[in-house]
């Protein structure tokens, strides 16, 4: 079923370049043109699309993952769990039961698989949640949000994306637009997986040029077709971004000028007022 939906990403490497702004403007524009669109806010560490659309988040559905819980009665203090843990989340002193540091635990399961006494049980922990909102007749928003303190946010992004695709199929949308986190690490990779096109939203500064190079490198590895959206195009120096675009052989398809009107709409959670900018 998913092959009939277009799946598009809005990403950028650097933070604050306008990824969410572009994802929302594109969603609003396509939905106005009569396409049905699902916007998936996959920036799970700091999701803001609802704020920019002036929506509250309702109908939370938890995202759970398994984490270790030691059964001290069964534990023989052998230290195997501590040895297999590659995130250093288990401290063990000879002759004593191990101590688990949940802050460092990724929930990978190596410890409970390796324990020869089956003394490590599991508990479900909420690592994040998703929310669904209907923005207009043709536009839905699905937001993923990680729980503060959770280190490994890749699985939260993965589940958010998978719920978005399921919802998209159920509603029968034409397009899913995925808004990613800044950077290139695991939660961005999870958000980008399966996208056919990625828009790299960047700004005309050496920072924008440098960081869009990093995300373009990732997109090259992932074989995702990319194009650059130059935001605040008239502030700074376009040439630096054009060089990156040439290096990776991707087009700069749109320039969005710096706009006081956009800043105001952004602040008010009323991006619907400036759809004409793209």
């Amino acid at each position, binding site marked *: 079923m998913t092959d009939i939906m277009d799946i598009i990403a809005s990403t950028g*490497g*650097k*933070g*604050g*370049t306008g990824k*969410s702004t572009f994802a929302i403007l594109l969603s609003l524009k396509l939905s106005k043109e009569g396409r049905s669109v699902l916007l998936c806010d996959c*920036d799970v*560490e*700091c999701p*803001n699309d609802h*704020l*920019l659309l002036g929506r509250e988040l309702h109908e939370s559905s938890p995202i759970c993952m*398994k984490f270790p819980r030691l059964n001290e009665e069964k534990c023989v203090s052998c230290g195997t769990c501590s040895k*297999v843990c*590659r*995130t250093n989340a288990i401290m063990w002193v000879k002759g004593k039961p191990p101590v688990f540091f949940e*802050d460092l635990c*990724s*929930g*990978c*399961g*190596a410890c409970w*698989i390796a324990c020869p006494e089956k003394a490590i049980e599991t508990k479900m922990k909420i690592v994040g949640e998703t929310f669904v909102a209907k923005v207009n007749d043709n536009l839905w928003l699905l937001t993923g949000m*990680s729980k*503060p*303190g*959770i*280190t*490994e*946010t*890749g*699985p939260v992004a*993965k589940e958010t994306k998978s719920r978005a695709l399921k919802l998209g199929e159920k509603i029968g949308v034409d397009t899913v637009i995925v808004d990613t*986190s*800044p*950077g*290139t*690490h*695991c*939660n*961005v*990779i999870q958000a980008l*997986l399966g996208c056919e096109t990625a828009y790299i939203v960047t700004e005309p*500064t*050496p*920072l924008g040029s*440098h*960081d869009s190079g*990093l*995300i373009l*490198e*990732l997109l090259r*590895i*992932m074989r995702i077709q990319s194009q650059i959206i130059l935001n605040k195009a008239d*502030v*700074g*120096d376009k040439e*630096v971004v054009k060089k990156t675009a040439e290096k990776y052989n991707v087009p700069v398809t749109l320039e969005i000028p710096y706009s006081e009107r956009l*800043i105001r709409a952004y*602040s008010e959670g009323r991006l619907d007022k400036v759809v004409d900018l793209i």
Partner: protein
Amino acid sequence: MKIVVASGKGGTGKSMFASSLAWLFSEKTKVVACDCDVDAPNLGLWLGVTTYDSEENISTSEKAKIILDKCVECGECFETCAFGAVEEISNGFSINPLLCEGCGACQLVCPVEAIELSPVMNGEIRVKNTKWGFPLVSGLLRPGETGSGKIVQEMRRRADRLSHNVMILDAAAGIGCPVIASVTGCDYAVLVTEPTPSGFADLGRILEIVNHFGIPYGIVLNKWDINPDMSQKIEEWSREQFLGKISYDRIVIDSIVNLRPVVTSNSNVTKEIKELSKKLQRLTK
């Protein structure tokens, strides 16, 4: 003394402010600047650094691989992987290196020892003695690799070895693994925000992390004049944790376009940042 600059939301001015702090603190004491935003390291650019004195490839993560000759296609690894990295292929299973976290759970569960783990060069640590008289240590996560938190830990160890009294750490956006690795063990956190609903909401989220570690903090409001009403709201909300504000000024963009530290410009912004730096020097004595 370790001071970390963080924000939750990207683009609020973390690197701009961290570079300014390093520059201003270095007038009084020995500083090392540490770029912990390994996904998008930009602190160097704010200090005019485009080449490094040393670049070292490092490995802080491993990747699993299935040896197809040994694999009996039982699917245990597929069921076990918490990161969805094991994929079904026509002749068994395969591991998607983009998703593998190198945790080794698949290897532990494999009944026929058909899974190998090997280290990958997933990052770089670069060092530069800047022309401003203090060193910069900068980490980089190779695109497509995992393990950003561990790269941060490793680069912090390197930075610790350089002689210094104050370490300024520039954290990544977000509140996940690389940010937690940057914030942990710091003595003070500077949270940079902007007067937008997103900036304010994400300030709340990064604050949960900072409070979780019990680190003293102060709030800096950047570009305050793009929305004075919201700025007033944030200032009131921050109460005694409010350090001060910085105006929106095109000179900041001109500075980065010309790769010149902001505080070398003759501007209002420089004055505001100098005030903030003085306040922070008093607070972190």
